[in-house]
């Protein structure tokens, strides 16, 4: 299906889409278009964020929107992240649908009180009487020495907070489709983007559509190892799969797309088949979503594992600045490939293989 496909090269993309005459745009443009259409069709929607109306336009994702919708709906704001998040929450409670945009996830810790203690709890704490339709867009930065305070990822933290949803599109198609799903969800949704996915190109319908929150997808079918890949890691996993093919190893790439709720079934049914699980995430290892995914498997059917689980994550260290350090810090397709090879070589017997009861 063109809308599930991940393209690693422009060539491949053009070959696939050109023939049926399907439109291909970037992840960045998909988000730009989604916001434009949302504002065209729903007067309650407005964008707020530091520099949303400036010539940079949030890495291009808000470019030109201020000309179409004016400064009230494409609203530059003071550098006051927690307070402004509260403003968004209050506006949402009073019937608006704010989209709060952060150029880096690193600024989210400043908003934690309003996100965690307010937005997340409001619907529950009011006995279901007031909901908060809020989308928080936050982009994970990477590279060129961004260093410890400009390249963090916190999606795992948000999955621990009841009341929040967490979505993390990797492809242009999902970026647009999940944006609309998030916007119409009626709950506070963390919409986490990755800067390195912005240039990726794929099929994106012009009309408005939704990708359901809570539905993962198999990006590549395979039989030997399941690689659950989050966000930009989808591209690394697909590249690893292409390389592994040469070794005769058949990787299945599964993308959860949304982390809370998490589509546990798409992961389980893959691991049932492969018996081997690697989770690749764009975040530090300990306490990551990768841990939650591994845990879900052992809660449900640990017996399907024929090898240890592997996490391909950032190390438990802040992001370094220098190029040699960055290079070592970030896992990529070869880190995944290495894990794949290790696992394929592993075949552990479980100590007491007894029949499953009931």
């Amino acid at each position: 299906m063109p809308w599930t496909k991940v393209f690693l090269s422009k060539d491949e993309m053009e070959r696939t889409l050109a023939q049926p005459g399907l439109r291909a745009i970037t992840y960045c443009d998909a988000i730009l278009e989604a916001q434009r259409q949302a504002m065209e069709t729903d007067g309650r929607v407005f964008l707020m964020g530091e520099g949303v109306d400036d010539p940079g336009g949030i890495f291009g994702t808000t470019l030109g929107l201020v000309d179409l919708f004016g400064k009230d709906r494409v609203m530059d704001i003071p550098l006051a992240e927690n307070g402004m998040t509260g403003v968004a929450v209050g506006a949402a409670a009073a019937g608006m649908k704010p989209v709060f945009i952060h150029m880096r996830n690193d600024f989210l810790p400043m908003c934690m009180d309003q996100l965690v203690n307010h937005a997340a709890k409001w619907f529950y704490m009011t006995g279901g009487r007031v909901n908060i339709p809020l989308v928080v867009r936050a982009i994970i930065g990477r590279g060129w020495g961004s260093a410890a305070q400009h390249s963090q990822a916190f999606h795992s933290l948000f999955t621990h907070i009841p009341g929040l949803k967490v979505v993390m599109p990797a492809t242009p198609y999902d970026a647009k489709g999940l944006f609309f799903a998030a916007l119409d969800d009626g709950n506070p949704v963390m919409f986490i983007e990755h800067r390195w996915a912005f240039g990726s190109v794929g099929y994106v319908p012009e009309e408005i559509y939704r990708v359901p929150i809570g539905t993962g997808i198999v990006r590549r079918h395979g039989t030997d190892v399941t690689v659950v890949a989050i966000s930009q890691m989808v591209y690394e996993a697909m590249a690893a799969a292409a390389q592994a093919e040469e070794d005769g190893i058949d990787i299945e790439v599964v993308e959860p797309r949304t982390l809370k709720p998490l589509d546990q079934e798409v992961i389980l049914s893959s691991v049932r088949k492969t018996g081997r699980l690697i989770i690749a995430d764009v975040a530090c290892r300990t306490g990551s979503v990768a841990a939650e995914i591994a845990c879900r498997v052992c809660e449900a059917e640990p017996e399907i594992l024929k090898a240890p689980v592997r996490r391909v994550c950032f190390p438990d260290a802040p992001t370094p600045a220098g190029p040699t350090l960055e290079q070592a810090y970030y896992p990529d397709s070869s880190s995944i490939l290495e894990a794949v090879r290790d696992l394929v070589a592993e075949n552990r017997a479980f100590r007491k293989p007894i029949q499953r009861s009931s």
Partner: protein
Amino acid sequence: MSDLKQPGHMDTQLLMDLYRTMIKIRRFEEKIIDVYGVQDMKTPVHLCIGQEAVAAGVCANLGTDDYLFTNHRGHGHCLAKGMSPASLYAEFYGRTNGCARGKGGSMHPVDPDLGILGTSAIVGGVIPLAVGAALAAKLQDTQRVAVAFFGDGASDEGAFHESLLFASLKELPVVLVCENNFYAVNSPISARQPDDSIVRFAGSYRIPGVQIDGTDVLAVHGAARTAVDRARAGEGPTLLECRLYRWRGHVGPECDYPKGCRPKEELEQWMERCPINNFTRFLLERGVTTERGMERVRNEIDATLDEALCLARQSPFPAGEEASAGVYYERA
């Protein structure tokens, strides 16, 4: 301060409403004290006895549509805005008929039909929310005004400042009402700020700030009217500082001076300035009502509150399963 004090301008109806509201709040809180010892109202109560004039004076200027946000010490504000005592008491008892179906307790009253969009017990937490509701009102081109009630403690928080900055920048229809009772729990304002006046912050945000005797309901009413009118006219926010005193301990039904939290003399001095007694004297002096008239009001209110307590206690408890339900909004 308020021309309501001028004989020529007396609006008997309004004056009696202010009295009624203050009595309702005082008695509402006192009934909690009465029942709290039974230990079946399992919620941390932050009573506002002594602070009734602010709730009454401000809310008398608000319409049903206007937004109200308050904090942990919010019973009075919600009652003044028109909330049903039964829905509050039932909430404190953790029952299904509570305003939040037993999920919120005393610190999180809500009534969207009255513009009470929810309450936060995080100090300073609702200030930006009120500003956000005011932003919504402006973007939606309504005439609604938002009010935030908060304590002196909240003005320690960065969120207070971020909110004032934005409210002023966008000239939002919001009234920021600080109830300065000079303490945050047991910490005196002198241990937290270099000056005990909160109104001093208004200037740096280029908005009007008014310091009021928070025990004088007419002073509060007058200042709030100006602020609400200003907001409704699109002229932006106002900061009101109401100076007053909390009579009971920070949380729970008791007085706190025996525990050494605050000096007994301080309480006694402030009790001399009881907002209800003073207003009562005023009403009698001006002949707005009589001792009999006031007794009738008190009895009426007492009966209503007793019935509310009764209703609350008869309301069923939510089933345990409810604890993990209702986390996410689902579209119908």
